[in-house]
Structures are given as C-alpha cells and as structure tokens.
C-alpha cells in the first residue's frame, strides 16, 4: 500500500466522512438521542423519588408514613423498570445503528475495491485489504457504538454542571479557567503525539495480516523446503513490529486518562482549598462550597471519561483513515461521458500506433495492426514481450498511453467498459473458480443458463464424466484449496464457462496450458467450434492452435517483429521459421 499512501488526511475530513454515514441513519440517531435523554432523566428521577420516600421515613420511630413510603417505592420500581427497558431498547438501537453503518461502510469499501483498476491488486497485499475490511472497520464500529453515546451524555452533564457552578461562584470558577485550558492543551499535545502512533499501529497490523496471508498461501512450499523456522523468524519480525506498535500507541495512549484525572484532581484541590479560604474570609457559605465541590466533581467526571475514550477515538481515527483512503483510491477511469454501449459487433480490431507502459518503462512501442472480423490471430513471442499486455489493453484493464485501439472502427475508449468486455470471452492460464458449486462456476457470466446448457458445455470440454462421477455431481462445492479438483480440471471448467458465454470475440491466453495433450485433443473440436466465426486472439505454445491462425504476430520487445500466416512466415525465413525449425534439431 505504501505506494498509495497519501498525505495524512486531516481530522475534519475524516469526521465529515464519518458524519455522512451517521447522517444516513439520521432517524435511528434521533431515536437514540431521544432514548438517551429520556432514560437518563428517568434514572435521575429515581433518586428524587427515593428522597421523597426517605422524607416519609424521616419522622423516625413509630412515625413513618407507610402510605407514602409504599407509594414512592412502587413509583420507583415502575420508573426503574421503564428506565431499564428504555436503556435496553437504546443499546439494541445503538447496536443496530452501528451495525448498519458497518454494513454500509464495508459495502462501500468492497464495492470500491471491485471498481479499482487491476493494477491495484498487483501491488497490494490481499491481507492488507482484508485487514481494512475486517479489523479497521471493526475498530471504527466499536468506537461509534460506545464512544458516541458517552460523548453525548458527557456534553449534557458538563453543560449542566457548568451552569450550576456559574450560579454559585463565578470567582471560584476561575480555577477552571486555568485547569480547563491546561487539559485542552495537554490533550492536544498528547493527541498530536499519539495519533501517528495509532496510525502506525493500524498499518503494522495490516502488514502482519498481509504477511500471514502470504505465508499461509505458501505453506506447502515452505514445508517442502523445511523453511518453517526461517519463515517463523520472518514472521517474528513482523509480529514484533505489530505488537510493539500496539504497545507504543498504548504506552502514550494509556497515560491520557490518568493525566487528565490528575489535572482534575489538582483543580479539585484548588477548588476546595480556595473555597475553604473564601469561606474563612466570609465570601462563601459552607453549603455553597460543598455544592460547588459536588458540581465540580460532576463536571470533571465526564471530562475524565472523555479523556479515557480519547485513545479509543484515536485508534478509530487511524482505522477510519485507512478505510477512507481505500475508498478514495482512484477507480478505473469512468467511461467517457458520451460512451456508448456496444452490442452487435462484427469483430474487426485495429491497433493504431499504440504505445503503453505500466510505469515509466514503455513496454509496447508503436504497435499497429489490423484484424479482420472472424479471423484468428496468434500472438507469439518470448515471455515478457508484451503479449499479455496487449490483452490487458484490448480488455481495457489499462488504457493506452498514446495511439488508439478500434473495434469495428470505433475507438474502444468511446465505449462503455462493461459492454466492451461483454464482447470478449477470456480464458486465462491462471484458472479462477470461486467457492460455489461446479454448476455455478460454469454458468458464471452467463446469467440464467439452465442446467442443460451447463451440462452440454461440460460435455463439450470433456469434463462431464468426471463431474458426474463426483458424489454431488454438478452441485459439488469447490472447496477452498480444492484438493478434490486438479488444476487441469479447474481449467476445463473455466473453458466450459467460456463455451457457455458465447461472446463474439475470444481471448485464449495459454488457455490449455494446464490441460494434458490427450484432453486437449479431445476438446480441440469444441475449441475450433468455439473459435468459428469469432475474432480470436490466441496466446499459446502449442503449434496446432497457431498453425491454422489467419495471422501470426511475432512480438518481440513490444514490437511486431514478423506478421503473416504460417506458410508466409516459413517462407520469409526469419525469426518464426528459425523458431519452428529449432524444435527439429
């Protein structure tokens, strides 16, 4: 992620982002505020009632007014019951609220994720993404559900106590004129110190998760090389970093509460000593002093509480920052405003002086060629020559740096990505299946394909028999690491998927590399049928697919070195024929 790391976003920005989520559920929030106030008021009425009850007891031995005592006790019970029910409803409401926000945040994050350009995934650890979706959002959530209410209650209490003190002795209130700024300055300074630490803590945890993901994915290799201990050592380093970062944040974060408490205690000392002296000089009554002290206790309590949740808030901020920074990643460039959907196409493709590089380094320099509708183009060349890059450009996973690619004479940048990609079927070397049933995997992409269609696609690629031999047949769930299914079988399933898709154009990038020759021979016919009438781009090692191509592009260092049919290129006696002959040596 380091590459995508932006300047630390400011607090206001994060707050305004968070506020949007909260605002989205404004009615829930309003209900929560209402409940908070009413259950607090009810809880406060309880003691008042008990006061009445005690007044009724007051007269003492033999004089107790039992009628009133019973009355007020009964009333108290009712109030407490109502208050408890309200607070129960309130906490459920808060859970609902925070979970709704979490749901929405997670959804936004994931939705954004899928709209990011594929390059993002090449440079980001999966574990780090997972860390944001789970841990970071959880942290924000914990803070939202606990701290928000706490802050609300605190504000009410602080405001009330302040008014109370103001009425009793504005002079004594001057004490707070000293301690409150001290608290604020201290908290500010601490926050400035602690915030980066929490940011580091979140990041390190993300790194730990990224590392765990990486290692767990490579378990077999690690075992085969007996590198367990070496990897444990590496893990320990990352682990220590993460635990230490947590500790560092805690080290300073956990001093905030006691420190603010200390300042409060000091102000208490000043208030009581000052009050006592005022009393001595007859500037205050003793009753006023004790009432003032009571208020000041009430006053500092919530401030204390607020300081305690401050560190929680800091970690929530750091987490929110990571969440929003992913949501703020630049998505795939939006389709041009006047982009059109493309549906019925003939399938002619033209590369016109295309230049492209993933970063600084240009990989494709000035590539131009034309493909007639329905023809098969084989792309041949050494690894790293830019074959896969061409496909990336064609599918608009990336856009060209200069030049243009035309589909049926239309610049593909003037088309919507979705409709453009719909016109292609792509089978890649890296097979990808998801944790659903085999039938779902085959029908993936062809919405509403029925079981018969799925079966006939499976038959066409010769995997029907195998699937039928499984206990659950087409409903076999493909498990995580799929011990039950080999790489080659997975690839056949993805080819069946392509068969079912029925798009006008076809991209086969080493599509049969994991399939053995015999099976390949068996599915050759279906593959040919698949390519029939479709503009097809084929990247392959094997000759059979290439030999019959209408055009062979020999790519070398991002340029077309040779171009023509098999026969033409052999006659030319250039690179291609050299390659062809080398195998007979």
């Amino acid at each position, binding site marked *: 992620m380091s590459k995508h790391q932006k300047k630390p976003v400011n607090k206001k920005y994060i707050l305004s982002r968070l506020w949007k989520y909260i605002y989205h559920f404004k009615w829930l929030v309003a209900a929560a505020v209402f409940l908070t106030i009413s259950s607090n008021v009810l809880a406060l009425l309880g003691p008042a009632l008990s006061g009445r009850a005690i007044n009724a007891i007051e007269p003492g*031995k033999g004089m107790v007014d039992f009628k009133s005592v019973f009355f007020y006790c009964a009333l108290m019970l009712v109030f407490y*019951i109502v208050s408890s029910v309200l607070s129960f409803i309130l906490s459920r409401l808060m859970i609902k609220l925070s979970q709704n926000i979490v749901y929405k945040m997670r959804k936004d994050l994931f939705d954004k994720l899928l709209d990011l350009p594929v390059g993002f995934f090449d440079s980001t650890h999966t574990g780090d993404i997972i860390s944001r979706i789970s841990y970071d959002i959880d942290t924000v959530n914990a803070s939202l559900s606990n701290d928000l209410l706490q802050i609300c209650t605190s504000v009410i209490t602080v405001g009330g106590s302040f008014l109370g003190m103001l009425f009793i002795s504005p002079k004594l209130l001057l004490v707070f004129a000293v301690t409150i700024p001290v608290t604020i300055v201290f908290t500010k300074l601490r926050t400035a110190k602690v915030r980066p630490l929490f940011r580091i803590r979140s990041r390190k945890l993300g790194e730990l998760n990224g590392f765990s993901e*990486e290692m767990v994915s490579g378990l077999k290799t690690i075992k085969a090389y007996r590198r367990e201990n070496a990897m444990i050592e590496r893990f320990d380093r990352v682990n220590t970093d993460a635990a230490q970062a947590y*500790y560092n944040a805690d080290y300073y974060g956990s001093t905030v*509460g006691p420190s603010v408490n200390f300042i409060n205690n000091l102000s208490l000392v000043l208030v009581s*000593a000052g009050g006592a002296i005022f009393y001595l000089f007859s500037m205050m009554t003793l009753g006023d002093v004790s009432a003032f002290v009571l208020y000041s206790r009430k006053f500092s309590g919530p401030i204390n509480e607020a300081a305690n949740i401050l560190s929680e808030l800091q970690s929530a901020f750091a987490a929110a920052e990571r969440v929003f920074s992913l949501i703020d990643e630049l998505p795939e460039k939006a389709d041009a405003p006047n982009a059109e959907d493309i549906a019925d196409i003939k399938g002619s493709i033209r590369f016109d002086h295309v230049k492209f590089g993933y970063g600084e380094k240009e990989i494709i320099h000035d590539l131009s060629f034309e493909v007639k509708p329905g023809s098969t183009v084989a792309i041949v060349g*050494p690894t790293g020559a830019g074959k896969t890059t061409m496909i990336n450009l064609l599918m608009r996973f990336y856009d060209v740096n200069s030049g243009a690619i035309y589909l049926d004479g239309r610049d593909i940048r003037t088309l919507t990505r979705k409709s453009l990609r719909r016109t292609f079927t792509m089978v890649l070397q890296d097979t990808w299946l998801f944790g659903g049933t085999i039938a779902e995997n085959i029908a993936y992409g062809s919405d509403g394909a029925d079981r018969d269609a799925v079966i006939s696609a499976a038959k066409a690629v010769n995997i029907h028999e195998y699937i039928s031999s499984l206990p659950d047949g087409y409903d076999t769930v493909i498990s995580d690491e799929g011990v039950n299914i080999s790489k080659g079988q997975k690839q056949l399933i993805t080819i069946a998927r392509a068969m079912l898709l029925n798009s006008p154009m076809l991209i086969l990038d080493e599509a049969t590399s994991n399939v*053995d020759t015999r099976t390949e021979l068996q599915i050759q016919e279906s593959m040919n049928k698949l390519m029939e009438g479709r503009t097809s781009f084929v990247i392959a*090692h094997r000759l059979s697919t290439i030999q019959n191509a209408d055009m062979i592009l020999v790519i070398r260092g991002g340029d077309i070195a040779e171009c023509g049919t098999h026969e033409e290129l052999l006659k030319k006696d250039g690179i291609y024929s050299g390659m062809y002959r080398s195998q007979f040596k």
Partner: protein
Amino acid sequence: MKRIFIYLKPKLKRIFAGLTIKTIGTLMDLVIPWILAYMIDTVVPQKSVRLIILWGFIMVICSICALLGNVIANRMASAIARDTTLKIRHDLFSKITHLSCRQTDEFTLPSLISRLSTDTYNIHQMIGMIQRMGVRAPILLVGGIIVTMTLEPVLTLVMLCTIPPLAFIVWSVAKKGVKLYTALQRQIDRMVRIVRENVAGIRVIKALSKTDYEKDRFGKVNSDVVAAEKSAKYNMAISNPAMNLFLNAGLTFVILVGAFRVNAGISQTGKIIAFMTYFTIILNALLSVNRIFMIVSQGSASANRISRVLDSPDEFTTGAPDHKNTGGFIDFEDVSFSYSGPGAVPQLKNISFSLKKGQTLGIIGPTGCGKSTLIQLLLRFYDADAGTVRIDGDDVRSLSLDRLRSKFGIVFQNDFILSDTIEENIVFGRHIGEREVLESIKNAQAFEFVDELDKGLNHMLTARGTNVSGGQRQRILISRALAADPEILILDDSSSALDYKTDAQLRNAVNENYFETTTIIVAQRVSSISHADLILVMDGGKIVGAGTHEELLNTCDEYKLIADSQMGEDMMEGGADDE
C-alpha cells in the same frame, strides 16, 4: 481460554506487581474525595489557613501518586499484553507451519489467516483491558459492600439478595456470548474467503462484467457477518439493563425494609441516605465487572479458535527405522492413496516403480491422473493408505521430516513467491552463498533476464510475483530448487511457461551440472520428459505404461497418442530473447 492462562502464568509476578501498583493508584484516587470531605467537615471549621494548605498539599501528593501508579500500571499491563500476544502469535504461526496438509485442509486457509489476525488481535485487546479494568471494579465493589455492612448489615443483606440472580444472568449471558462470538468469527472466515477470491480473480470478474454479482455475493456475507455480530451483541445488551433493574429494585426494597426498621427504632434515616451513596458506587463497579465479562466472552471465543489449532495433534510421527535394500533410490511399493482417507475412491492405485540414483523420471498423463499426488506422497505431505514409499531404501515414514525434505529441491505448479528480492526468493532463508545463487540462476536459465534488471538479484518481487512474466517466475522458482544442490529435484509442471529452447537448455544444464541429482519431471509436453531414464504414463491413478521414450512409443498406445499429437509442436518462442 485455559490456554491463555498458561501463557499468562510465567508473567504472574509481573501481573501481580502491576496490579498492586494499580491498586495503590486507585486507592489514592479514592482517598482524595475522602480528604475533601474531611477538609470541609473538620478542617475548615478550625479556621486555619495553614491547615487548609497542608491538607491541600497532601491531596496534591495523593494526586501525583494516583497519576504515577495508574500510568506505570497501565504501561506494565500493555507490556504484558504485548509479550503474551507475541508469544501466542509466534506459537500459533509456528504450529500452522507444522500442521499436516490434512489438518490445513480441514481448518481451511482463510480460517487460519483470520485466526492469525483477528483472533490474536482480540486476545491482545482482552489481556490489556482485563488488567486495566480488573482492579478498580473489584476494589470498589468489595470496599462498597464492606462499608455498607458496617453501616447496616441487615439492609446490606437485603441488597445482596439480588446478587445471585444477577450472577446467574451475567454468567449465562457470557456463556451464550462465547457461542455467538464463535459463530461471528466463523462468518468472518467466510468474508475473508470471499475477499481473497475476489482479489485473486479480479481479471476474470471484470472481464465477465460480474462485479455487480460479486458485490451482491459480498453483500450477503456482509449481512451474515452483521447479523451474527448483532445477535452476539444483542445477547450482551441484556445484562446491563438487567443489572440496573435488579440492583435498583434491591434498593427499593432496602428503603421499604428500612422504613420498617426505622419505624421499629432499630435504624436511622441517615444510615439509609449514606447507604444509597455507597450503593451508587457498588452499582457502577458491578457494571464494570459486567463489561469485563463481555470482553472475556468475546476474547474466549477467539482463544478457543486459537487453542483448537495449537492443540491439534502432531500428525506425522517418525516411525521406527525401516530399511530395505531395494537397489533403487526412489521406490514406490504398491502404493494406494485417497485424499479422503482409506476406503474412499483412491487417487492413486497400486503404484509401483523403482528409480536409481542420478536417474531422471518423467511422469505424464491426463489432468487429474494423480501425477501431483504422487509427488505429495514422496514429500510426505500425506501418508499413503497402503504400500510403502522408500527413499534410498528407507520408508519415508521412518525418516524425520527434516531429513526427508532436506533431500528435495522442488517447484510446484504456480509456486509461491515471497514479496522480497529475487535473491531472497532463491535463498529462501537457507544458508546459501552468493556463488551458489549465481550458479543456480545460470543453470535455471534465469541469468540473462535477471542481469538485465536494474537491480539484478536485488529486484523486488511483488506478492505472487506479478511484476515478472510467467516464464521468468518459473525460472526464479527453478533457481530456488537448484540452489541447494538437492539430492532429488522435482519439477511439477513447472516449465510450462518456458519456450522450447529455454526448456531444452534447462534440461541440458541439469543433466551436466547435477548428474548426481535424481530428477522427477511432471509434464504435459513429451519433449520435456523424452530424455528421461524412466517415463510413467498415468491415467486414473494407475500406471498404464512405464519405460523409456522409445520403448513406450512401441508399447504404450496412450503415450504414442500424446507424442504424435505433439510432433512439431512446442516450437513457439524459441530463439527469441527476453526483454
């Protein structure tokens, strides 16, 4: 949860010291209001400024002690939480690396990942919180009860009557909480899995315009996670209001009983008032205790998940020495195996062959025929259900895993790349010098392209090696396998992305420079294995042909079919140089 205590045990002294300091700090905090009351009630009426300042000074000292005590104790608690988490995570990770493949299959990778991350994080939080909150609440609780006892034992007992039902509620809520939080973690596993899937398949998803579908799919898991978390928290939400209700009801009864007692002249109103002040303290303390319970029940769900991994038995034990002079170096004696264990449809059926030291074995056959399974048995990722696998006459089960696996250099299909330099990927944490690394990349035909990179061997690879081409990736992996000069080299379909010429050069280099190495090549291309001393043609878990290339061409129809179909193929990319 027991596990966590085992981890905390060695730190008991430190924990105890921390808690003691914390207790002092907390007591100081509590002494301050007491001094305050004393000042107003006793000192002020004495009208002595000196005394007032003296007591004020004492309060300042108490405040400083409270500050220091709390800060020091908090930091000690953090340190203990850090050290414990470090150890737990370390043990968990090393256990995971030592799990057998069957066990990892069972736990599933996403679940292991989230156990390493979310679950250990929960534990970290729990250990810190308990230490910080675990002092104040009990002190206030016990202190409050003692004071009320001295004030009015009868009324205190009335109040204490509410404790048993409260304890029952807290306990059963917490118990149910563990279950619900475990369910929540399970849902999180599912979510992690879908995120992983999406990241891995992003190209396919975009190509098929299935992003909306995937968003829906994630949306479902998302709502499942949210639902699980809601029910876990809803359960927890009962205990706080219930506590408030019970205690306040208790208080009401205290007033009622108090009324009778006052009426009877046994008690005074003042006592009841004082009683109510302390009652608030007790209530708050109980609420804190409840919070601790909530944290613990979430934490112990995670602790249980971690313990399940830590407690899984070591599946692979080294058996008694079992040596047999077979004359071969690698022997499979009538080996059968199924991933689902004995009795299921076997992936390998009665496999027997023998290979001499320094020879090359080629394995070819259709997808799913058991080629890779055979390799997994040789490395003892799984144990054979029947029959014996021998290396140099020793049953693989009789060798320690270390001794067994140190013999191999292996490249799997789509093998694992560290996000580190090329050199680190080749060295792979072993003691391998620069000379060996250079030699290995030369033999793996990787020298040229590595040399052309700006930073050469120090070129940083991304996770999954996405910043080099497939062929380059394979050559780096082959260098890794060659670097330690292994006794047995296994290439499991790992030169598929190499062009014909490079593949041939690689084979020559291996033959010339590693002639003592026994090589096993799993391939789909006949040209990759035609030079082998022994070729196994496999189909449906059985060997359908064995022999040299020439022999098989005459005896094995399957082989002939494959060979014929590939004649004149595999020519692409030859002679071209890399970028």
